[in-house]
Structure formats: C-alpha cells, structure tokens
C-alpha cells in the first residue's frame, strides 16, 4: 500500500498585534511539527478540541493557508515547491468539503452553475461533456436531476452538504479533505452523509483526511486517527486501538468525556480538570502537563516527541504513557 499523502514537520504560525493598530505582537503556533501520512484508499482522522490546529492542518493541505515550514508530498510531488500552474493541476486531485453547508455555497448560483464551474475552470471537456458529468455527479450523491436548476437556499442542511460533496467530486479527485463535514447536521442526516462518504470511499477508492471533534464519527469513518492538542499530534494509530486503549492521558480524557448513549456507562465527570491554555502562551515542556494527573518534573521541562510504542503503527508523545490494556508492559519487557 503506497502513501498518497505524506506530511512532514509541518509548522504554521499566525501573528497578531504589532501592526499600525498597536497591541503587543504575539505569535500563535497553530500547527507545530505535525507529521502524518495517508495511504491510498484509507481515511485518516484528525481529532481534537477547538484551537488544537486540526482545521489549520486541513487547510494547509490545499495551501489555502500557506505553511511556514515542513513538506507536504502528494503522490511524489511537494505541494510547497509547486508553481501556481502546477498547483492548479494538483487541486483537481485534492478537493475539500467544508463544515458549514450554508456558508460554503454561493447563494446566487444555481447548483448547475456551482457544479460546472470547476470543470470550466480546469477546461475539462465541451459544454455537453460538462453537462453529462454534472448530471452523473448529482445523481451519485443522491439528489434528483431537478436539483440542478435550484438555488442553495431551497435545500435542507443535509442536501446542501450533498451538493458540497458533489462539488468536490466533479473533478474526480483522489484525496478529499473533509473539514467537520457532518458537525452541523442532525444525527439522522449525519448518518446519511456518513453512509454516502463510506460508499464514495469504497466505490471510487478515495482517500480522506477527515477532521472532526466527534470521536464517535471518527471511529465510524477513519482507519487511522491522529489526536491533536495545542498544535501537536500527541497520539497516532489505528482508530480502534487508540480509542479502546489510549496511550496518551489526553486521548483517554477525550474519550472518557465523549458521552455514550448508555445510562449505565456514566462517566466520572469530576476527573477532568482545567481548560485548554491560550495558544499564544503555551506551557513549557509538554503542553498538556498543567491538566495532566501523571505529570512529573521532566514533563515541565522537555517536550516529548511522537515516538513508537508497543507496535510500529502506534505512536505517542508522552514520557509516561498509559499502559495499553492487554499489552501491559512488564518490567522485564522494558529491561529488554
């Protein structure tokens, strides 16, 4: 299995203040040394709380936000080195689906105009071919042909998200970056959209980078998951393993605070303390140590790196990771 996307040591800093409006100049490290790769036909989840940098990572993948450092290699080509014309060609192959289906469609264009625009921009086919492509795509996402002559306000949230997905699909991309695609939807509609994405992944062999704050959705849709906290990936691995036996204390807290529809499994809510610190003023060492019950002296001083634990496809950035259930690390195993 080959990797379609490889991200290495990605860094993005935002600056605020210091301009003519005055104010102290502050730097927000939104993305800090992030590396991951996505295999062809697989979906990778980025999960974390607000401000952890997951959406910024998603946007840098299409250079909607220019990263400051690191490399993004898509199918052997470094996106950061690509010229404008190369980038235009690459954007046919990488498409994005946004969270808010109400804000991401142009209200003054019919669905047909919205869907045919990318094909016209990239000069893909005659008017008749474009029309045929638009018609087959709208049906593929489960909307009737009559939808093409209507405007976005005539559709419900779930239908608009289908249009947003169709817009991404008309160019036959290989990788779709989905930024919270189901977060604005009701559960029943969310399930419809997830089912649609599942089908597209299977039938078209699409790869996904899937951003979400909802671990339930991530568990359902993603093969691997990266848990992010304050701009860093703190744990990475196959979704099921990470959620069933988290190694990083934060992944554990995140999982334990996600409510489960079972009154018998109420969480001990009081254990979760503190809030996410401001990203302008990051704590020293491990950024999680102020909220961590296992923090020791070196957690205040040094930043733990993302290193492999227990098996080669799992890694964690923690000096004192939780022992994985089932693969408990005995003292002998550590000494060897």
């Amino acid at each position, binding site marked *: 299995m080959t990797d379609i996307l490889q991200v290495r040591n990605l860094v993005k800093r935002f600056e605020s203040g210091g301009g003519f409006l005055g104010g102290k100049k502050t730097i927000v490290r939104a993305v800090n040394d992030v590396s991951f790769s996505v295999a062809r036909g697989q979906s990778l989840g980025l999960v974390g709380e607000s401000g952890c940098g997951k959406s910024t990572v998603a946007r840098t993948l299409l250079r909607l936000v220019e990263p400051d450092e690191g490399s993004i290699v898509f199918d052997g080509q470094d996106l950061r080195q690509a010229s404008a014309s190369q980038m235009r060609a690459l954007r046919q192959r990488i498409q994005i689906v946004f969270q808010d289906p109400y804000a991401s469609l142009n209200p003054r264009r019919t669905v047909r105009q919205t869907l045919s625009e990318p094909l016209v921009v990239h000069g893909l086919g005659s008017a008749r071919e474009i029309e045929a492509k638009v018609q087959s795509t709208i049906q593929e996402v489960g909307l009737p042909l009559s939808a093409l002559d209507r405007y976005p306000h005539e559709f419900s949230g779930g239908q608009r998200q289908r249009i947003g997905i169709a817009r991404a699909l008309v160019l036959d991309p290989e990788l779709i970056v989905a930024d919270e695609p189901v977060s604005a939807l009701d559960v029943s509609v969310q399930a419809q959209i997830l089912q649609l994405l599942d089908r597209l992944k299977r039938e078209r062999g699409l790869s996904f980078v899937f951003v979400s704050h909802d671990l339930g959705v991530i568990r359902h849709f993603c093969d691997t998951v990266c848990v992010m906290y304050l701009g860093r990936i703190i744990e990475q691995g196959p979704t099921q393993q990470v959620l069933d036996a988290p190694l990083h204390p934060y992944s554990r807290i995140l999982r334990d605070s996600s409510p489960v529809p079972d*009154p018998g499994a109420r969480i001990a809510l009081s254990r979760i303390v503190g809030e996410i610190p401001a990203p302008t003023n990051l704590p020293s060492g491990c950024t999680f140590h102020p909220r961590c019950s296992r923090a020791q002296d070196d957690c205040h001083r040094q930043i733990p790196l993302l290193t492999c634990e227990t098996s080669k496809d799992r890694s964690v950035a923690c000096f004192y990771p939780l022992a994985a259930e089932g693969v408990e690390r005995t003292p002998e195993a550590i000494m060897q």
Partner: protein
Amino acid sequence: MNTQDTVLELRNLRTEFRVGGAWHAAVRDVSLAVGKNETLAVVGESGSGKSVTALSVLRLLPEAGARHGGGEILLEGRDLAPIPEKQMAALRGDAIAMIFQEPMTSLNPTMTVGDQIAEAIRQHRHLSWREARALALEALEEVKIPAAASRFGDYPHQFSGGMRQRVMIAMALACKPKVLLADEPTTALDVTIQAQILSLLSELKEAHGMAVVFITHNLGVVAQIADRVAVMYAGEVVETADVKTLFERPTHPYTEALLRAMPRVDLDTAVLEPIPGSVPAITAMPRGCAYASRCPLRETRCEEQAPALEAVSQDHQVRCVVRVESNKRHI
C-alpha cells in the same frame, strides 16, 4: 411520580406560528411533568419543537408571529398561561430561569459579569447594589469559577466559552429558581468542557433541589444527565420514560432509529442506519402519525388517524399504535 413533588407540568400545550397568513402548530399536545430534584431531558432533532416548548413556558416567543394555542402551563399547580405579562415578568429569572446555547450572545458585552448577575438579582429582590454584588459573588463561587473575586469585574469577552457558560448558570441560579430550563447549554462547548458543565449542573440540581428541563439533540448527553426523558418529533412527544428504560427498551420506531443512526465512541458500528426522508414541514403536517412517512412499521391506519400517547408500562408512554398493540399482545 409523586404529584406533590411536581414543580412544572405542561398539559396539552399547543404553540402556533403564523406562516403565510395562517396559524400552524409547532408544538402540539405536549404534556410533560418535572419534579423537585429531577432532570427531564427533552431530546429531538432540529425542528422537533423542543426549544419552542421551553420558550413557550417562559412566553419568550415574539408576539407578532407566535401564539399560545391552548393547554396549561402549571408551576406548582398555578396556570401561567392566562396570567398578565407583568406577573410573568416577575417569574422569569426568579421562579423559572433559563440558560441558552450560546453564552456569548446571551451576556451583555458592555457590563462586567459581576454587575450583570447583581442586576438580575436586583430585578427580583429589594436589595442594595452592595448586597446584590455580594450575592453575585457567591453565585460565581458556586459555579466554581477559579478566583471568582478577581474575575468579578471582568467583561464577558475575557472569559472562555466554558467559563461564560458558568457565568450564565450563575446568573440563572442567583435567585434560586424552582425550575431551570437549559436549552442546549453544552452544544457549543468542547467535550471535556461539556463534561465539566454537565457535572456542575447535576451537582447544582442536587444542592438546590431544582427541577431541570434539559433540552438537547445529543442522546449521549441525555444518557449522562437525565432522570427521565421525553423524545420529541415534529412538535409532539413520541416517547417518554425513565432514562434506563428508554435506552434499554426504546419502543417508538423513531427513538430506535435515532439510536441506530448515532456513531458511538465505545463500540464499533459496522453500519449506521440513517433515517430516510425528512421531518414534515409544520405547514404540511399529515393527518395521521407525523412519523409515518419515514417509518418501517407503517400500516394504512397510521396514515389515517393520529396516534395518542399511550402507556406501555408504568411511566413509559409511546405514541405508536403498532408498538402499543404488539406490546399488549406480549403481556
């Protein structure tokens, strides 16, 4: 439930909206009761009428486009529907308080949080500013805002989302209400903060012996906080039961479908089952069961006659003729 303990009871509440010159019911025949020291979760998707129900209780819907279409709103046995606006205003924030989803837009950005809470107290109690501020500080401490005394003079924008929601809760609780209506209070928050706010709300409910009506769309949150649950669909209560029964034996086909459509963090769900179709518009409510067009158990009688909410066991009621009947056969 012991009727003496019932604090807030709705009987056949109907709320109508004016759409295109005609009045249509957004909330129909809703009967709910919530007792002292009890959390009733009202769960449903967008447009199910759960928020409108809460706003109808406090009479917060715009008069121009909405009206009370019948039914009783009983606060400790006294019907609030016919009382004049002036008496209603005295009750709001005093006997019945409400917290909203978006704490930033519900707080006044030009007033310090301490003064906002003190103002709410002075609205209902004859106290000096100094006394009201002292009570406001107590309220902020009660909702566990760290260093409450030093944050008393801060403005809302200086607080994080979770802390703002704590301020909202402090304000709602400052007058020791008998009923707290919480409309999606944790929806805008991150999961770890949501967990903190949920545990705070259940502690405060115990401490004050309040009746809490918790409105949410998230069945996971319902399982965490509720004592009893009412599931709403298209303006009606379709199932009501205690929390354990509802999750163990969901009986209305809509409740079942909701649970099957929800991806879970603790289990692998190979297949999610979406609910086909969509909620009928309030201008086009069918004559029969509102869920019939999406229901796998649909029979012809479902489309002809609107089902009533009927008991299937003690304290478990369902609005579905098919299920109620099959339940009777099993007994």
